[in-house]
């Protein structure tokens, strides 16, 4: 039986995380999706995220990356993925320098296209899309950690910022 999701207000992460991120940079190609999942799995294990919720997070990250893979064309801009573990949550950020694009018309009925966004929302505790001037659309996925477990050693305390 899947454990209940923790119920907590999600504070806004600090802006500058470059010195605290575990990062991965790969070309936006379908063949790299497995490596991306392995990266997320490792980050989830380090954060002591429940295994089943780790699966959900892998699906959400895969959906976020698949959009970039689908629309990157021949450029294969690198996908930059950053995993930051706090005492109460794991945050995965995905960017590839391009802006998120809606699936174009054609290629099947509506119910078979556009599964990615609803799946992302269904699988994680919070999804944020931030349109940045230099990094394209940043997708930020947050999974709350089990508050009954001791926090991972050496993790950052939660931000004091308000969630929007």
């Amino acid at each position, binding site marked *: 039986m899947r454990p209940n999701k923790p119920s907590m207000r999600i504070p806004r992460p600090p802006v500058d995380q470059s010195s605290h991120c575990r990062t991965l940079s790969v070309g936006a190609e379908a*063949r790299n999706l497995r490596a991306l*999942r392995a990266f997320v799995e490792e980050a989830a294990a380090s954060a002591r995220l429940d295994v089943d919720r780790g699966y959900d997070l892998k*699906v959400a990250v895969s*959906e976020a990356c698949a959009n970039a893979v689908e629309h990157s064309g021949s450029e294969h801009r690198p996908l930059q993925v950053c995993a930051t573990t706090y005492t109460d949550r794991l945050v995965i950020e995905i960017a590839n320098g391009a802006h998120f694009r809606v699936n174009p018309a054609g290629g099947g009925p509506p119910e078979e296209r556009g599964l990615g966004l609803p*799946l992302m929302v269904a699988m994680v505790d919070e999804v944020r899309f931030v349109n940045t001037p230099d990094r394209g659309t940043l997708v930020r996925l947050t999974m709350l950690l089990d508050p009954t477990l001791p926090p991972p050693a050496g993790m950052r305390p939660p931000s004091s910022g308000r969630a929007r």
Partner: protein
Amino acid sequence: MEVEATQIRSVPVFAITGEIDHSNASTLSTAVETPLTRGESVILLDLTGVDYIDSGGVSVLLSTVRRLRNRGWLGVINPNENVRRLLEIVGLTVDHGFRMFADQDEAEQAIDAHTATTGGSV
């Protein structure tokens, strides 16, 4: 991902092992295309060996269900808990053109019932 084609009661069964994602979902869609084009009314996917599936693979399931809807159904056998949850989230488990079975015995019973209903072989 590996796909092995077999049969149960003359119904095509594809036993899949590994992960189904956007990079290899076309392998699955290619595999089911043959029975779909041939006019089969029931197709089974044995998901016992599937560790992971996301929208890349689910899209193939949805497409197959759509194409079988007026004449039969798509069945999956023994998906793990996480895969089953994903199928629930996308609404497949409440679709009349989709069935989920714990094992091959259950699938066989459903095939026999379908055969009896349609009055002939599937």
